[in-house]
């Protein structure tokens, strides 16, 4: 399956439940049921589905990322993920595909998509490098977080009206490992890619002269948005941290009431009751903290990465315009082949127009998507908080009722 001379070991504690869920659900090939399947997963994606639906299409391609496995070779150790595709699109020969991909492959795909569509907003990938160091790279939590992010990445691409029809995307989903390797080697060579990069850098140094107002507004927005989303990400991470410390102290609390009850007789009931309540609330608090980590944190983090993508998109658009402007200036000043230059300039002008339109179109799609995701994540978090307090309320009210009924019994008996 993996195609390498490597040991593959299934990592424990991975997506057993996830895999089971997906397996159980994706076996139903009924189209309507499939729509339900994916909205049960990360809730913040539900808005994206709505977006696709608005265009009048039923989703016809479903992608999942699961089942991480580690591969150990002489040179390195790395993780591969299973990518499962189900589709009814005619571009695909089959209706089902199963391949294994590693992070490098996702990174390659993103690069290709950005190359082909420089001013479309390509969804973000989880970070390439881990700041904390080597050991963490293979921890269960890290792999699971990455897997979820990779899953979201492919789904965003699959839901994008233009990107999902990219040839590179199709190859990514369908090619076996050796096929993908050889496909990657095709296309513009290393030298020509470098040439493009040099030109791009040169242009960006020069800068754009007549940027349309709306793109300046976009840039201001992106900078402000980036700051805000980074702040929210930090605040949320801080809340998670504070709650973990709270949970730590709370764990010590209930046992003291239980200890105390050992010395009492009349008070045994209420003391044990309070201890029990605190223990139950502890469990609810832990669940609520997990929800925060599973829902709000990844969403905010994704949009932090997104804001970097947006900045890159705006830069690329500027470069395209700068290249056109440079050639246009050259037309006026340099004594070169006017006709050939004019043709080139026309092409560049078209390119600028095309780039601007692509960005404008994708911008409103992205904004809608962002609003949907953010709203969904915060609504879910607020709802979870309500649920949490309702559960704790029930716990304490039950205790109170039990004490009150005892009390009134005593009063009846003594009067």
């Amino acid at each position: 399956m993996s195609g390498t001379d490597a040991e593959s070991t299934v990592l424990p504690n991975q997506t057993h439940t996830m895999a089971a869920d997906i397996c159980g659900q994706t076996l139903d090939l009924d189209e309507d049921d499939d729509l339900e399947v994916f909205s049960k997963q990360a809730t913040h994606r539900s808005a994206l589905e709505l977006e696709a639906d608005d265009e009048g299409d039923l989703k016809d391609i479903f992608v999942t990322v699961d089942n991480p496995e580690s591969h150990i070779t002489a040179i390195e150790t790395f993780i591969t993920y299973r990518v499962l595709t189900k589709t009814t699109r005619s571009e695909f020969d089959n209706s089902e595909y199963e391949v294994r991909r590693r992070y490098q492959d996702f990174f390659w795909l993103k690069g290709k998509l950005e190359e082909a569509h420089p001013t479309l907003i390509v969804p973000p990938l989880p970070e390439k490098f881990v700041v904390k160091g080597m050991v963490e790279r293979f921890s269960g939590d890290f792999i699971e977080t990455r897997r979820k992010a990779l899953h979201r990445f492919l789904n965003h691409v699959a839901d994008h009206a233009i990107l999902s029809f990219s040839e590179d995307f199709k190859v990514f989903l369908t090619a076996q490992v050796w096929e993908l390797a050889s496909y990657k080697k095709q296309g513009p060579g290393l030298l020509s890619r470098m040439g493009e990069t040099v030109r791009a850098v040169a242009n960006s140094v020069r800068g754009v002269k007549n940027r349309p107002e709306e793109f300046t507004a976009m840039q201001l927005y992106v900078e402000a948005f980036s700051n805000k989303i980074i702040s929210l990400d930090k605040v949320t991470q801080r809340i998670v941290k504070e709650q973990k410390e709270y949970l730590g102290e709370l764990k010590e609390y209930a046992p003291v009431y239980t200890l105390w009850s050992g010395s009492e007789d009349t008070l045994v009931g209420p003391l044990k009751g309070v201890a029990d309540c605190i223990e139950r609330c502890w469990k609810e608090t832990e669940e609520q903290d997990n929800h925060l980590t599973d829902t709000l944190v990844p969403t905010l983090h994704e949009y932090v990465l997104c804001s970097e993508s947006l900045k890159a998109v705006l830069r690329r658009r500027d470069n395209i315009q700068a290249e056109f402007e440079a050639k246009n200036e050259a037309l006026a000043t340099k004594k070169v082949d006017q006709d050939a230059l004019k043709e080139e300039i026309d092409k560049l002008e078209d390119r600028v127009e095309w780039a601007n339109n692509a960005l404008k179109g994708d911008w409103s799609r992205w904004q809608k998507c962002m609003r949907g995701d953010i709203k969904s994540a915060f609504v879910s978090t607020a709802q979870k908080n309500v649920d949490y307090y309702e559960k704790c309320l029930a716990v304490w009210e039950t205790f109170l009722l039990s004490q009150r009924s005892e009390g009134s019994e005593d009063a009846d008996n003594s009067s």
Partner: protein
Amino acid sequence: MMADCAPEEIAVIGNIDHTSAELKNNIRNSMVEMEKGLLRKMEISVAEAEKRSGKNAVNMLETYTVYLIETRPVDAVTEDMTPAPDLLWRRYSEFELLRNYLLVTYPFVVVAPLPEKRAEIAWHKLSADNMDPDFVERRRVGLENFLLRVACHPVLCNDKIFYLFLTEEKGWKEMVYDTGFQAKADSWLKATNAAFRVKNPDKRFTELKHYSDELQAVLSQLLRVRARVADRLYGVYKVHGNYGRVFSEWSAIEKEMGDGLQSAGHHVDVYAASVDDILEEEENYADQLKEYLFYTDALRAVCRKHELTQFELETAAQDLASKKQQKEELVTGTVRTFSFKGMASKLFGQETAEQREAKIQVLEQQIDEGEEAVKEKNKESEDFVKTAWVDVERFKEQKDRDLKEALISYAIMQISMCKKGIQVWTNAKECFNKM
């Protein structure tokens, strides 16, 4: 609150919806309602606290707090008018003097404790300051509680010095010293600090001592852990306050989401701010636990007093037994107990019959005195055990009642906190939905 209930009965507070102010002093309220002891005749409260400055014993300027004690005869309050109460001011040190006097004068009573002189178990750095208004306020409540406890007590409520404490501002200190309690206090201190072993203590008091040690340990631990938990909870709530600020800034650049973000931010701010009230209420719960933590000292003091009287009885009985022994030996001529005199007379010749007779006379007198002493000590010990145990039982009932009430009020606080949480997050969710 409780309709027809004779003053001696346990008042169960059946009302479910407690307001915050009621919760604060639910134990005080039940004391007042029960109208026991002195409270049948007068209302007592520690109404205010004030800062004063003055020169102290070493002629240095110091700042201290005084507390205003208000008293008013119960029957003076009619439907038409509430006359002004009688007022006087007392310092904490005067409360301490009163309590020491009561401890020494009524050693068989489990005397209510005073609130902390200095805040030792504080959940937040701020509340550790003696001049901090919150601390002073809680101390005021604690002092009032102390006075009510004493006023309710079947024995202590009749004490003259206590009555004068409430009614005579000037010269009260001198009156206390005039009772001569200081001398008793000193000898009591010396006696209790000395090491002695009791052979046959009343088992109930031994158990009581163990219980008070256990209770002290567990309440100390509970208060410490509770304070740490409160500290962490404070952190969680307060960090949420940052959301409001960021939402507000973000709403400025969003057209569709702006309103939703802004209003949601407001609710999250309310959430963050709500923790202050929540934790302040919990301080009252902590104070109730602290009172019983400090009560364990009083329990131990009673046990100690029992051990002392028992020890004195055992010593007297032992003395008597040995005197009787000596007499018997002299009479029968057998020496069973070693004495230098006996040895000397053996070695250096028998004593005369007259000498022996004289000795026996002395011993008989000593035996008579000894028997009186033993009878006296026995009565003392029995009386002490009887009266002390009555008070211990009274204390146990009070403790069970009060602590159950405290635990219930704790549950009510948690319920209130949950309700606030539900409301604020439901509101926030509605705002998020509008984004």
